[in-house]
């Protein structure tokens, strides 16, 4: 098992990412997008692709940089710090991981397009208000040599803008994953007005045609392909949340040092000091869980589930605490839209929910630990 310490390459990657994002995508860039109602910055994504981020999990022979899951987490964490909006998680992490499970020419081709930044994906998995792939009801009815998809998906993150969709549907003997363009006849996308001002959609499928070619992996065996993708996504999302926590925390500690009340810096008040210190401790142990998840996905993916659920659960509780303390310690100003702290709180809430909330992953940890 690799060591729980950033490699030199990973540290360099983090520094480079930070340097790039501080220039190209600070929080002010997010604010601008939010104000303008945009949820995608094509130019930024193209730059990320050029740096190898879009292809972080794409094999080198398909044009990727193939840096691995721990590296993907490093990038996601830096993005989280300044609330960077991009198709990174849906496309570069999850869709790429799913496609990598399949070794055919079509998948290779798709991976190449991901790496070059020429195609974006969204995962159309959930139908209810909570993450639960196994509960999929959407039907893929056999029809000639292919299928007809009918049903509704909700909380499809990046779903309004994505070029392609990975759609989970129920076939005769199980679940099947389809890889189809999002403009196929019968698909209606309804953009959701999300509190984090990012792309998500409700998507309606009305007798949508899918051929055998559109099946990703084997029919009735979606989870073989989807599970690794979800795990990769959950780990990277945890990393993004850790970055988000760090970003919010940095703002908060800065404010504690600078803001004066009753004639002194509020950072001198011991009650606030201890709460800030406790929060820092939580961020530290969370960092370990996330690093471990990346290592397990790279080294022993078959047994990574515990590590991944641990990371997502812990990242969720820590991010929740970080933004709550962030708002409270800022006082009134933290509640205003003109200040950035609210963005962190709203993004923390959405990412807590996406791909399984605290309880979902805590129950996974419990099950895997034998209770």
């Amino acid at each position, binding site marked *: 098992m690799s060591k729980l310490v950033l490699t030199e390459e990973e540290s360099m990657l983090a520094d480079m990412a930070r340097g790039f994002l501080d220039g190209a995508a600070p929080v002010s860039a997010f604010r601008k997008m939010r104000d303008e109602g945009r949820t995608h910055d094509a130019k930024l994504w193209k730059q990320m692709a050029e740096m190898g981020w879009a292809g972080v999990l794409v094999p080198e022979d398909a044009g990727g940089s193939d840096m691995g899951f721990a590296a993907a987490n490093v990038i996601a964490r830096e993005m989280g710090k300044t609330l960077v909006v991009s198709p990174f998680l849906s496309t570069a992490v999850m869709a790429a991981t799913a496609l990598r499970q399949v070794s055919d020419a079509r998948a290779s081709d798709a991976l190449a397009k991901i790496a070059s930044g020429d195609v974006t994906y969204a995962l159309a998995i959930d139908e209810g208000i909570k993450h639960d792939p196994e509960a999929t009801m959407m039907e893929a009815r056999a029809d000639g040599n292919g299928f007809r998809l009918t049903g509704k998906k909700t*909380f499809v993150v990046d779903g309004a803008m994505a070029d392609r969709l990975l759609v989970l549907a129920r076939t005769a003997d199980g679940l099947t994953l389809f890889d189809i363009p999002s403009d196929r006849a019968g698909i209606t996308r309804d953009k959701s007005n999300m509190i984090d001002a990012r792309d998500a959609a409700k998507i309606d499928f009305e007798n949508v045609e899918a051929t055998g070619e559109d099946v990703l992996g084997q029919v009735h065996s979606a989870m073989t392909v989807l599970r690794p993708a979800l795990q990769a996504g959950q780990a990277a999302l945890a990393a993004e949340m850790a970055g988000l926590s760090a970003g919010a925390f940095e703002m908060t500690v800065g404010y504690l040092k600078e803001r004066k009340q009753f004639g002194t810096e509020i950072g001198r008040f011991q009650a606030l000091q201890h709460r800030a210190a406790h929060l820092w401790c939580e961020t530290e142990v969370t960092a370990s869980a996330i690093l471990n998840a990346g290592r397990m996905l790279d080294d022993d993916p078959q047994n990574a589930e515990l590590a991944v659920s641990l990371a997502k659960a812990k990242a969720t509780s820590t991010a929740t605490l970080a933004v709550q303390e962030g*708002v*409270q310690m800022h006082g009134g100003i933290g*509640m205003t*839209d003109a200040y950035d702290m609210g963005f962190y*709180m709203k993004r923390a809430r959405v990412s807590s929910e996406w791909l399984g909330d*605290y309880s979902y992953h805590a129950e996974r940890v419990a099950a895997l630990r034998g209770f």
Partner: protein
Amino acid sequence: MAEAQAATDFRAGLREWLEANCPAEMRDGGAIENAICWGGKDWVFTSDAQKTWLERCAAKGYTVPTWPVEYGGAGLTREQEKIFHEEMGRIDARSPLQSFGIWMLGPALLHFGSHDQKLEYLPPIARGEVRWCQGYSEPGAGSDLANVQTHGADQGDYWLVNGQKIWTSYADKADQIFALVRTDRDAPKHKGISFLLIDMDDAGVETRPIKMISGISPFCETFFTDVKVAKDRIVGEENRGWDVAKYLLTHEREMISGGGGGLAGGGRALGAVLTDTLDQLDATLRADAMRCEIDALAIGLTLERYKDQAEAGQGAGDASAMLKYMGTELNKQRHELMMTAGGSAALEWDGDVGNRAGDWLRTKANSIEGGTSEVMLSIVSRRVLGLPA
């Protein structure tokens, strides 16, 4: 026994009146924000029923049931007030009127105002004709409320007021503002403040809404530029406004803590509300919901206990700080759980579960406005526990 009979009679009479006078449309509890009738000269009633209900209640003094009859109230005793709320709850009647005039300025005037001031200001509040807002906080002052910079220069007949207030709730919709103004710059911080009443239509008063993280703007910034405030527009004595402010803060804290009916009122259990969207509560959510429910019930009972104590002449002292702290922290927790139960549906502005996210974000201000949780704990620490400052 005579007392018990009187209570029974009062209840019967009230029930009959409510049956006859409360419009059917007003019997929906009105727990949602935009069902509230705030009153004021610019108020637009959302329905005829809302207007009728306000007028009928005002005529009986039921908008401010415990205020004296001569000032527009119904003069109810504590016992009768309880019965009033029970009977209103029984038919799920909306509150006819809510306002900062009822919650805050009214109690301040009843305590500190002259008879003439009470006659002048209270009945219009009770009738919903004048809407008040409060001007306490100033930019940068934060929790240090006595750090008032807004200045009132003594010009003989009037004060010339200059300065800026922030977090003035609904100032953009209010007719009048009660504000803390420094009228003696040489006195110690708490000794040079006066509690003034200012007309929002006066020349030199400007107000601007502040957009909050919840997307709405319940608060404003309010600017005073050479505003003339007549010398009789003061509550309490000159330079003794801090006493009024402290008294009022107590009321504000009780209100924010849920005294306005949110928590203590016989609302549905949180756990039951959560199952509106989730078939089954997982262990974590169920455990949290039980804890919140227990706390909500205990805090609600504490509010009742303090009211009973007050009636029995036993002051609750600095307990309002406790209620404010416990009530607002609980409310934040409740809304966190509501968000969790709402899942992805709660992540949209005005999605399938309404404005759940907006309500959730709004609660984050609960533990800041009217004194932060930290200030409340410090008050308890010093004044109740006697720990050294």
